[in-house]
């Protein structure tokens, strides 16, 4: 047995086996064809006709200057050019030992993303996977590619890396051509070694050409930052047919240090001379500190109060003393304005609140006319609660604010934006702030990490020392940004032949993001709002993503006002597959209701109306793999204590298509639903790392199962009552599915799309549809927890 030995985030691994070992490391192949038509003449670095033609066509498309094409041994640099998107050296570097470093402006959250990026870079550069090291998320060494965002890690994040690696390889071939005095067309590359075809003694390595030095060469930048940031070189990346490393199940780099504890996460960052801090936030919604008794923490050694306007924190040299001080601090809070509705009246509040904004995002035909003349109209309403990220550990962050330089250590999944937010909060130039990203204790969107880092920076500035902030459990559960609660209404018209002729879907909800999905603007942070910055607010939601072609179809959303304008524990922001679970819980359950109303099998019904061929293929794959037996409205025996049922749901998500068949058991007495077996069919285009993809889908499914069955933020008019795991229960090990079957549909011809979120959105409706199959009763309100199941079953 061999084990990982690395304790840092490198890709050097020792347990690669079998075909992975062969293909990712030491296979020999002729890369002549991949070298392309770009030929640099051996003498003087001048350009051949074909090279000029290619450069010209690239320039015609708005591409790179001829300078990049003409990179020579004389033009490579000993000093690294400044970090700019249009510098090739900002993306990829060859180290003296021939290792490749790629700088990635997104981050991996334990789902193989860095492995996949390394596979893509290795592929384009023709080096073994082992030689590639990914440096992620640090603002000093990587560009702002948007951090982890909307499952775009490969879909968008790999693009500039792929192009840069291909461009680097092109230049390396040119340099080898110059060095060996042989045309590029006669060169072959194998694992970072360039040799003359037919003469293996005449060769030069990447390391010998440029190791430790820099390309000093431009790439074309599309002038965007964040997710859309892209660069292009003259080189054309490989076609998927040529892939050898992309497509392999290479294991992750971060498992060993997690299992052996040989490296830490953000909670483990400590810097010399730092103080421990705890932010003290009101337990009462909308209230502020009227008086603070500083003497109440006097007995705790070294404990100090930090107070500015409505921001309140304590610091102490020892962490336990900071914890004690936060608890002991006597604060007189103003009366709560009771800004929240009664918990039981949440959805009534959503129905009745004024509409701030309505958008009809998708419209075809005349829905209203069709509904008014329908033979049959089916209508239903679905309810989703507020949910909490409730990350495994409350967020922590370290900040060292010095007069001329600020360093932050953050678990925020968007570290570049955290840097921008700290600079704006402290009113310093962004260049003086360096964000160092360290993996956090769970990250599924904008959780509490974005607030922790701004809190730490502010406190550090106030006390003039490095500061480590960590939340207590209630900070992570009660005070993290929430996924919005919603009400969804769907109507459909059916004609005399049983055809669905109109479909009308409307969401009414709190905005999907009353604070932005990143913390670059202090108005979107708790500390910013506590210091008096006005809330920005947000007004957007979303619509179902599918390809159902009904003759008349309208999909819209309406957003209602926030409950509190500032520093609210119920402010909303993005949580894994933002609004996807809410929307598809409703829309895919309604589709089942339509199938039932027309007496059709749920999968047959979907395949009849879904028009995109890839969608139909996914549905077919899920049906086949799960052994789905078509059914209509035949009577079932439902006399048993434990009822079983099956349900399907399907959706698109930004290019990815997924369908899931849920097989559940319902215990009539306890009200417990067990998601016993799931079959997932998943199409996200080209698959980069199948095993990493499987684990990602599994985790997404189980997390969504937890949200479907258990998760609901409890509150009263004057406070959030979900403060820990007892008041915000999640899935337990006994609820683990017995089996998750995954069918991966690989489409090398289609660009890779996201996999981290799509599966989440089909789980809730699949469960609810299976519940209907099992019991004959609809559960139109989530979560489908035991109490609600018992109530529904006892009243029908």
């Amino acid at each position, binding site marked *: 047995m061999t084990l990982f030995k690395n304790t840092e985030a490198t890709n050097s691994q020792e347990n690669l086996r079998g075909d992975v070992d062969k293909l990712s490391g030491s296979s020999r192949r002729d890369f002549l064809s991949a070298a392309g038509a770009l030929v640099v003449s051996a003498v003087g670095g001048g350009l051949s006709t074909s090279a000029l033609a290619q450069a010209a066509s690239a320039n015609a498309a708005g591409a790179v200057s001829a300078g990049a094409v003409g990179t020579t041994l004389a033009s490579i640099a000993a000093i690294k050019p400044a970090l700019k998107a249009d510098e090739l050296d900002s993306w990829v570097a060859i180290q003296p030992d021939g290792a490749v470093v790629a700088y990635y402006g997104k981050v991996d959250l*334990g789902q193989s993303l860095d492995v996949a990026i390394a596979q893509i870079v290795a592929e384009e550069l023709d080096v073994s996977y082992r030689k590639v090291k990914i440096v992620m998320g640090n603002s000093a060494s990587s560009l702002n590619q948007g951090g982890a965002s909307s499952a775009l890690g490969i879909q968008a994040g790999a693009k500039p890396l792929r192009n840069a690696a291909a461009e680097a390889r092109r230049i390396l071939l040119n340099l080898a051509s110059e060095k060996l005095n042989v045309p590029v067309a006669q060169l072959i590359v194998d694992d970072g070694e360039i040799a003359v075809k037919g003469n293996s003694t005449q060769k030069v390595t990447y390391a010998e050409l440029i190791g430790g030095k820099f390309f000093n060469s431009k790439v074309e930048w599309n002038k965007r930052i964040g997710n859309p940031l892209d660069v292009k070189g003259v080189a054309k990346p490989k076609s998927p047919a040529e892939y050898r490393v992309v497509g392999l199940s290479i294991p992750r780099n971060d498992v060993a240090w997690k299992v052996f504890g040989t490296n830490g996460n953000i909670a483990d960052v400590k810097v010399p001379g730092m103080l421990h801090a705890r932010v003290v936030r009101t337990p009462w919604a909308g209230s502020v500190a009227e008086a603070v008794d500083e003497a109440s923490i006097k007995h705790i050694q070294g404990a100090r109060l930090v107070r500015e306007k409505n921001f309140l924190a304590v610091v102490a040299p020892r962490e336990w003393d900071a914890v004690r001080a936060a608890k002991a601090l006597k604060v007189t809070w103003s009366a709560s304005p009771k800004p929240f509705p009664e918990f039981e009246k949440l959805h009534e509040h959503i129905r009745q609140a004024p509409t701030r904004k309505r958008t009809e995002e998708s419209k075809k035909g005349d829905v209203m006319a069709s509904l008014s003349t329908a033979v049959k109209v089916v209508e239903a309403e679905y309810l989703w609660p507020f949910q909490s990220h409730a990350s*495994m550990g409350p967020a922590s962050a370290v900040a060292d604010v010095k007069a001329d330089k600020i360093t932050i250590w953050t678990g925020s999944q968007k570290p570049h934006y955290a840097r921008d937010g700290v600079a704006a909060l402290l009113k310093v130039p962004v260049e003086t702030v360096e964000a160092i990203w360290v993996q956090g204790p*769970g990250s599924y969107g904008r959780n509490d990490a974005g607030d922790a880092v701004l809190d730490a920076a502010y406190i550090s500035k106030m006390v003039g020392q490095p500061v480590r902030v960590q939340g207590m459990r209630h900070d992570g559960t009660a005070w993290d940004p929430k996924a919005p609660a919603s009400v969804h209404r769907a109507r459909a018209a059916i004609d005399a032949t049983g055809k669905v002729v109109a479909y009308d879907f409307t969401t009414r909800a709190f905005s999907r993001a009353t604070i932005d999905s990143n913390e670059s603007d202090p108005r979107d942070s708790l500390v910013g709002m506590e210091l008096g910055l006005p809330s920005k607010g947000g007004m957007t939601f979303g619509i179902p993503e599918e390809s159902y072609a009904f003759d008349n179809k309208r999909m819209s959303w309406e957003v209602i006002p926030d409950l509190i304008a500032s520093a609210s524990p119920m402010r909303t922001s993005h949580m894994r597959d933002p609004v996807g679970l809410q929307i598809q819980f409703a829309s895919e359950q309604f589709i089942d209701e339509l199938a039932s109303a027309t007496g059709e099998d749920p999968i047959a019904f979907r395949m009849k109306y879904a028009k995109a061929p890839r969608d139909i293929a996914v549905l077919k794959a899920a049906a086949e793999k799960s052994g789905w037996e078509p059914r209509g409205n035949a009577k079932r025996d439902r006399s048993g204590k434990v009822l079983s049922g099956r349900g399907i749901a399907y959706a698109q998500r930004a290019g990815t298509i997924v369908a899931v068949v849920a097989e559940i058991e319902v215990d009539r007495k306890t009200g417990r639903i067990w998601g016993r077996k799931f079959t997932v069919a998943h199409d996200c285009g080209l698959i980069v790392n199948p095993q990493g993809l499987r684990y990602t889908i599994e985790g997404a499914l189980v997390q969504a199962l937890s949200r479907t069955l258990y998760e609901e933020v409890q509150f009263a008019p004057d406070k959030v009552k979900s403060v820990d795991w007892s008041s915000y229960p999640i899935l337990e090990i006994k609820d683990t599915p017995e089996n998750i079957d995954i069918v991966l549909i690989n489409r090398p011809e289609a660009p890779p799309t996201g996999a981290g979120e799509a599966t989440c959105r089909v789980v809730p409706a699949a469960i609810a549809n299976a519940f209907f199959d099992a019991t004959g009763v609809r559960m139109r309100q989530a979560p489908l927890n035991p109490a609600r199941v018992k109530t529904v079953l006892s009243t029908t």
Partner: protein
Amino acid sequence: MALTPFVVDGQSVQIDSDPQMPLLYALRDDLQLNNPKFGCGLAQCGACTVHLDGQAIRSCVMPVSAVKGKKVTTLAGLGTPEKPHPIQVAFLEEQVPQCGHCINGWVMTSAAFLKKNPKATDAEIKTALEGLKCRCGTHVSILRAIKRAQTLMA
């Protein structure tokens, strides 16, 4: 303040602290043993689990004074990359953790349990692990790894 001597991962240590300070803070802040994690501070999640004289306990609610003279084992004391515990081998081979913040709890709790119940059934394993939390949804991998560990330990 009070002095508390105890043994951690085979080393004798002494902590000078508020006697009510939870063991977790002594391990993480005074001894720089970061493997037990703060998850809730309420014994509701298990991220802080260590072995106290062989028993899996939640260090976030155990006053440091209560471990006086006792033997504490952390994840680092359970096994190392050079000399791994079978549970660690299984969790590695099954690629279990995503964010990894919970993993200490699952490894330490299942190691203590399997030592006494090497042939535990699936139902017994699930009962033994009740209360541990994982937010990334890696439960399927966790159970696969524990089954694999049982094979390795047989």
